[in-house]
C-alpha cells in the first residue's frame, strides 16, 4: 500500500500536503498514530462512565484525525465527541463507540500495511 492508496481509502492526501508538503513527514506522523493511545483512553473512559475524561479523549482523537486529514474516522470521532459534550452520562456515546472503533481499527490495519510495506 502506498501513501496515496492509504489516503484514497481513508481521507485526503492533497489536503494533508497543503499543510505538510512532504510525503516523508506525513508518513512519519502517520507512524506515530500507531503508538497513539487516545483510542484506548476513550474506551477505558467510556467503560468507566467518566464523562469529562471520555469527552477529552474523544475531542483529542477527533483533533488528531483532523490534523492528519483522516476524514472518515474523524467524523465518527466527532459524533462521539458531541455525544459526550456536557453529557450527563456516557450512554449515548457508548452506542456510537463500537462504530468508531471498527472504523478506527480498519484504518489502523491499513496504516500497518503502509508502514509495514515501507519498512520492508
Amino acid at each position, binding site marked *: 500500500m502506498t501513501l496515496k492508496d492509504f489516503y484514497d481509502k481513508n481521507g485526503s492526501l492533497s489536503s494533508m500536503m*497543503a*499543510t*505538510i508538503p512532504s510525503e516523508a*513527514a506525513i508518513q*512519519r506522523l502517520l507512524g*506515530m498514530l500507531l503508538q497513539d493511545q487516545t483510542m484506548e483512553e476513550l474506551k477505558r473512559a467510556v467503560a468507566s462512565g467518566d464523562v469529562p475524561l471520555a469527552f477529552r479523549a474523544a475531542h*483529542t482523537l477527533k483533533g488528531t484525525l*483532523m490534523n492528519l486529514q483522516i476524514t472518515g474516522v474523524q467524523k465518527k470521532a466527532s459524533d462521539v*465527541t458531541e455525544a459526550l459534550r456536557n453529557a450527563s452520562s456516557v450512554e449515548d456515546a457508548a452506542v456510537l463507540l463500537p462504530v468508531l472503533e471498527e472504523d478506527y481499527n480498519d484504518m489502523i490495519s491499513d496504516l500497518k500495511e503502509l508502514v509495514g510495506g515501507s519498512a520492508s
Partner: protein
Amino acid sequence: MNSAYHFSEKEANELRGFPALLAIFENVDGTEELILASDALLSVLHISKEQEKEAFRDGLKLTFHWRGANGKELVLAGKSVGRKRMGHVLFYVTYVDETALYHEIRKGRECEELRNNMLEKVLNTTQACLFWKDLDRKFIGVNQAFLDTYGFESAEDIIGKTDEDMGWHPYPEEFYDAEAKVLRGETMKLGHTKNMIRGKEKDIVASKAPFYDEKGEVAGLVGSFLDVTVLYDEKRRNAALNRELQNALEDSRHANNLLTQFLSRASHEIRTPMNAIIGLSEIALEQNDPDVSVDYFRKIAASGHYLLNIINDILDINKIEAGNMVLVEKPANLGELLEGVEVIMDPQISAKNIKYEYDMEGIPDAWLICDRQRIQQILINILSNAVKFTECNGRIRFTGKLADEADGCVLTFTIADEGCGMSKEFLARIFKPFSQENRDPAKYGAGTGLGLTISKRFVQMMKGDICVESEEGKGSTFTVTIRAKRCKPEKLKVKELAEEAQEVSSLKGKRILVAEDNSINAEVVQMVLMMNGMECDIARNGRDAVEIFASAQQHTYDAILMDIQMPMMGGFEATQRIRHLGRPDAKTIPIIALSADAFASTQRHAEENGMDGFISKPIDRKLLIKCLIELVQEGREI
C-alpha cells in the same frame, strides 16, 4: 366553226348591254373564230369603260386564267382589240398560251421564297449579331441574335434609329468616324472594341462592310459582331496572373539574394568574436603571470557575451521572418515596465555622466495588455544606441505619451539625443540587418547591427512603427508607436510576491511555545512552524505551559499556541494564569487557541479568556502563518 353566226332572240337579249358580245378569236395561224361569249370569257372580258376605250385605242392587254372543262388550267396572255363590225362591237383577241411560263414564274417565285426563308432562318439562327444600316446610319434590319443580345422585344425597337439615338457607345466619335469610312466604301476588318450592352461594358469583335445598290453605289452597311467578353476577361485574368507570377519570381529571387547576403554578413559577424576568443585563449595559455591571464579571460568572456548576443539576435530575426515569433501579451503595468528599462540603462547612463531627462506623465499608472519583455527590449535597444552615440556629459531625453483611440490606445515613446547623428544615406538603411555606420567601434562600442531590425519588426507586430529623424552632428530622435488595449490593474506580481515573502521572512527565528497534549498534533504544529523558519518548544499540558513560560526570560517567546483540551490544566485556565503572571511580556504575548472545535461559542470563550486568535483543526498552514504574522508583528493590544 362557222364564220358567221346568227344569234337567237334570247341570246341577243342576253348579250345586249355588254360591251363585248362576241369574241372573234384570231388564232395563231391567222384564222378567225367566232365564239359565243361564255361565262368564263364574259367575266374575263368584263371590262370597264376606260378599258373599253383603251381596247379601241391601243388594244387591251389581258391575262386571264381559264380553267377548262377538263380541269386543265390555262393561262392566256392576250391582246384584245375592239372593232365595230356588223353593227356590233367586237373584240379581237390574240392570245398566247403562257401556261408554262406562268407556272415557271410561279415556281421561280416559290423557289425564291424558299431561298428567302432559308436565308432568314440562317440569319436568325446564327450566333453572330448581324445588322444593316442605311446611308444615314439608321438601322434597317437586325437579326435575332442582335435582338437577343441587346434584349429588344422586337426589331421595331431599333429599326430607324441610329447608334447615337441608342447611346450605347462609350466612344461615339470613334465609332461614327469608323462607320463613315465604311460608308465611303472601305471594309472594316475584324477588330476589338468595347460596347455598352444592357448597361454593362462588353468586349466585342466586329466587322463592317458596305453594300451596294443596282447602280453600284453604296446603299448602306452590313455589320456583324460577337460578344467576346468572356474570352477577353480570361485573357485579362491570365495576363494578371502572369504578372503576379513574374512579380513573385522577382520577389523570390530578391529574397534569396537578401538571404545570401544576410548569411554572409552573419557568418562574418560571428567569426570575428569567435576568432578573438580562440586567439585570446591561445595567448592566455602561453601566459605565465596569472594576473595577465585573468585579463585575457575577461576579454574572452566579453567576446563570448557579444557572440551570444549576435546569435540570439539572429535567432530572433529568423523566428520573426519565419512568422514564428509570437508576442506574449499579458496585463502589464507600464510603470513596472519602465522600471525594468531603467535598471538596465542606469549603469550605462551614469558611466558616461549623461544628463537624462525623463517625462512619462500618466504612463506609470497605466495597465495595458502587451508584451512587456519585448517592449523593454525595444526601448533598451534604442536608448542604448542613444547612449552609445552621445558624448560624455551629453543629454538624452526620454518621454512618453498615452492617448486613447477608438478601440484601444496608442503609446508613443520619444528618445532624443544630441549625439553624432546619422547621414541621410545611413538613415535610409538603419532598419536593415547589419547596417552600421563606419564609426570607430573602440569609441562607440560594437553592436550586433540587428537591434533596430528586430525592434522595428516587433513594433510592427504591435501595430505600430518606429520613425527616425536625424542630422549629422546634431543628434537623432526616435519615435516608437505601439498600439495596445487597456486592462484592469492587477496586483503587481513582483510586489505581491515580495510582500508575501517579506511577511513570512519576518517570522524567521521567532520562538513559539506550543501547548498540546497529543504528540501527533504537537508534531504537526511543530513541522509547520519549523518549515517557516520558526523555533518551538512543546508543553504537554496547561500547567507545563505556564511553568515553561514563567521560568523563561522575558521575550523568549514571541507567541503561544495553546490547545484547549488538555489534561491537568486546560488551555483557558493556562492562558488566564499566564496573563496574571505580572510580567509585561505575559500581557503582550499573543496567545492563539488551537482547537478541534470550530464553534462560535468556543471562539468567544477563547476571547473572553484572554486569547488573541483562534485556529481550528485541521490546521490550515496558510491561516496559521497569516495569524502569526499579524499577531507577532503588531504585538498585542492591551
